[in-house]
């Protein structure tokens, strides 16, 4: 008359999957925090040039200007490299107004620290870039970052 029953055969208990949702949620939150939504869809080809002496970009104070050839979806705009800001093509003359608009939308304390990130396709001619820079000087947004891919040294 023992208190402890002797089971006939001891079956292995099934592995509990109750904590699986927790693990997956943890991963989910990690990715939600560590990543950003793809914002503007590119209408141009954008293969960045490479460089090894790079600095990190401070995302909160940066506004992006894209330039390059219109990609296959936007062939009707021709072969000449164009400037894209947010979701539209703009002309060189509009760069100043667009950047000032972006600056006005920024946080008060970051307005003076605005950085313009230039994501320019590597086959673009440098004349377009210097036109953009001239416009940026007119807008008095003098900090520029040429966004590049990181090349191994």
């Amino acid at each position, binding site marked *: 008359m023992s208190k402890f029953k002797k089971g006939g055969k001891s079956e292995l208990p099934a592995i509990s999957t109750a904590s699986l*949702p927790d693990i997956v949620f943890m991963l989910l939150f990690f*990715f939600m925090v560590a990543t950003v939504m793809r914002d503007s869809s590119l209408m141009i080809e954008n293969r960045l040039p490479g460089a090894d002496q790079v600095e990190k970009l401070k995302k909160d104070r940066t506004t992006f200007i894209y330039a390059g050839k219109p990609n296959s979806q936007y062939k009707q705009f021709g072969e000449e490299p164009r400037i894209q800001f947010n979701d539209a093509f703009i002309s060189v003359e509009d760069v100043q107004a667009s950047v000032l608009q972006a600056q006005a939308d920024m946080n008060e304390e970051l307005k003076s620290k605005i950085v313009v990130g230039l994501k320019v396709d590597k086959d673009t001619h440098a004349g377009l870039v210097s036109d953009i820079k001239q416009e940026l000087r007119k807008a008095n947004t003098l900090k520029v970052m*040429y966004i590049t891919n990181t090349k191994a040294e």
Partner: protein
Amino acid sequence: MAKRAAPEVNAGSMADIAFLLLIFFLVTTTIEKDKGLLRSLPPIDDSEVEPPIIKQKNLFTVLINRRNQLLVEDEQMELKDLRQATIEFLDNGGGTNAEGASCDYCQGKRSPSSSDHPDKAIISMKHDRETSYEKYIDVQNELVAAYNFLREREATRLYKRYYPNEDKVYAAMLAEKEKNQFKKDEELNERIETIKKLYPLKLSEAEPDKN
């Protein structure tokens, strides 16, 4: 009839829902990875002041033509040699700066025909409108690399004792500043400023000719 306990909600599908969300976020988002070369543009200057006369020997001219060929100090040069040539120019220290002090940390040849002092040494860059952007960035990168090399050397000389385990002292200092961006470390900032002052980045870009 006795009141029955409400049946427990089946949470078995919770994992599936969470996976679905996870995959959605994986697909629609990107991990931050933008890096680049930071540069300050000169402000527009309308004043009629005569620009100061810069001696030819303190000027290092880099031209890129429409065929992406480099002309450095009136000689054709390959991109791979540009870094070394720039370092030699900046580090020459043949004379004195505006205060009359000579460059006691320069390790260059001290040739009288090259730059007087890193304070005075100016790199002047000009490109054609048809130059490719890739080449332009390559050249910018080499020029920045020359400055970084010299700053790294000085940082190692001055502050190696604070970073005994680091190979690249200047890089380590910048990384530390980046890491502590929310608390001001006066001492560190001062050190970085000191290094930057030894080799101030003086890069002027001429506008390409309109043709």
